[in-house]
């Protein structure tokens, strides 16, 4: 029982960042119809930005997180402008190939800049775990969970309560009508891609100090993000939030009770089962972006 509680807590920490990755990808996938294979590279970018901020520049943790978010959004906006806008009338497969090209190029650019050796990020939190009844958790992990939940809440408020969020939801429902109503859909698409990329970078900034940072770390992150999106349903932000937390917990339970070698198989199996049995996601009747 105690072990179960411990797995649940560890799963929630992982799941919070998976939710960030998933929300970013589901916005891009749902609103722009782009299968973004480069999503994990923004995650890697965030992790390296955090490494630079904490280890090289000596910024506080919140500053590092803000820097990662900003770096992800900037690269995202650039990607949308240079690669995606010219291809917006092309088929989904064509755009997917371009994103695969971007993914390979970015990953190897990171390898050139940072080298292939995994780096660990020094963080300012004490290493002694906090013990809460039967569960113990490192202060770093607690801070990561809190930051992830705050970012998720921020994303929800942005989408549900602001004028920009309203424009996003309108564009998701029907881009042509939204454009006729005066929504500048080019800007909405650019901002959506930037926001999604920024959230992925933030997830990298949060998980980077827990694990190690290396150039190919984004590959797994992309796959997790796709699992979360499939689990939650395309373009469904609430679904991605719950799906991310579920995937994190399921992985911890799988690693704890089945075999740690098959931890990453959990996401694959979930993706196959959901796609074959309920392709519109587990929460199809829940509220969508639109």
């Amino acid at each position, binding site marked *: 029982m105690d072990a179960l509680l411990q797995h649940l807590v560890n799963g929630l920490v992982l799941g919070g960042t998976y939710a960030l990755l998933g929300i970013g990808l589901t916005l891009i*996938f749902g609103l722009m119809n782009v*299968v973004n294979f480069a999503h994990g590279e923004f995650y890697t970018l965030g992790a390296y930005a955090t490494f630079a901020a904490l280890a090289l520049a000596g910024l506080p943790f919140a500053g590092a997180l803000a820097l990662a978010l900003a770096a992800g959004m900037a690269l995202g906006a650039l990607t949308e402008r240079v*690669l995606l806008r*010219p*291809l917006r009338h*092309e*088929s*989904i*497969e*064509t755009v*997917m*190939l*371009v994103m*695969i*090209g*971007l*993914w*390979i*190029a*970015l*990953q*190897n*650019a990171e*390898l*050139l800049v940072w080298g292939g050796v995994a780096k660990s990020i020094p963080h300012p939190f004490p290493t002694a775990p906090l013990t809460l009844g039967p569960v113990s958790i490192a202060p770093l992990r607690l801070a990561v969970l809190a930051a992830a939940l705050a970012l998720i809440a921020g994303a929800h408020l942005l989408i549900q309560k602001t004028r920009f969020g309203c424009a996003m939801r309108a564009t998701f429902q029907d881009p042509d009508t939204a454009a006729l109503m005066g929504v500048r859909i080019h800007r909405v698409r650019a901002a959506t891609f930037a926001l999604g990329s920024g959230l992925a970078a933030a997830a990298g900034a949060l998980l980077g100090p827990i694990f190690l940072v290396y150039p190919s770390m984004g*590959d797994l992150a992309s*796959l997790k993000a*796709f699992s979360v999106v*499939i689990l939650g349903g395309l373009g469904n932000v609430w679904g991605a939030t719950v799906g991310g937390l579920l995937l994190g917990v399921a992985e911890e339970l799988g690693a704890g009770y089945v*075999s740690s*070698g*098959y931890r*990453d*198989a959990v996401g*694959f*199996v979930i*993706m*196959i089962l959901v*796609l*074959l049995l309920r*392709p*519109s996601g587990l929460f199809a009747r829940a509220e969508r972006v639109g």
Partner: protein
Amino acid sequence: MSARRLRPRAAAWAVVGLAAATAPAWLPSPYHLHILIMAGIFAVLAQSLNLLLGYTGQLSLGHAAFFGLGAYTSALLTLRLGWPFWAALPAAAVVAGLAGGAIGRLAFRLRGAYFVLVTISFAGVIALVAQNWMELTNGPLGLPGVPPPELGPWSFRSKAAYYYLVLAAVALAWGVTARLVRSRIGRALVALRENEPLAESIGVDATRYLVLAAVVSATMAGVAGSLYAHYTRFVSPEVFLFTYTVTMVVMVVAGGKGTLSGPLVGALLFTALPEALREAVSWQWQMLAYGVILVLLVFFLPRGIVPTLAARLARARVPAPVADGAPGALLSEAGPAERPGRR
């Protein structure tokens, strides 16, 4: 096709055939022969992916799974059970083909991005099993000492002999694909690619034909895997690397999907290009260039090298139709319509 277009074509084929048949004699070093052998193995793989991506329009990003299954089946049968290569190769083909059929039956309930994601997932699961099932696959350490093929008194230990084996496989893959896509089945596949509801309305059973294509495609990938295992004599979970799948996609798209010679051109070009770059730059730059080239290709040569050249040649001669079997040849110039996931 008019006789006027046929003659230079036949001459070109004769030259290519002659050059390929005599390659071990005129290539300057075993290293160049090695590159040609790898290009041949990749040509079989690229042709296998082309059958799906080019002729049915379905992008499988799990193709390395069939390559890896073929490699492991062949290596395990020869190492553990002492089978000869000539029995292990067909067995590898059958195992990969069966897997292709099983996965295809499930995955072809979906289209577009959903299909792509399911193929990635299946490949991911198979790769994790290869990595974790220590008793069978020796895990990440891999299987060393895979024996080279023997045929009576001859051994295929030499590069020249292995080259002819691979050449025969390339010719076979070509022949099977050509025979298939020019048959009634091939016309059904292209009809499904161009307009699935229309094709189904005239009685084309989508799932049946797509699964058939997946079985043939996976079988070819399994053959390539077996050839790879007995050439490098070592199999590890790296054969499942996503990089192999991406390489196949790049070769097919760059060469020209939906053409018979496109994957061959792509395989030759993209095996030789990294090797040529190797002397000039480090391998990180190679992969960086690879990604950039893929992006540029989609932007500037979306139809691939072979269809673009064919169209240009045809325009230079007389107003002629689009290259044989190229995307858009059947119904319209427009690309295949987007296929949303089935609900």
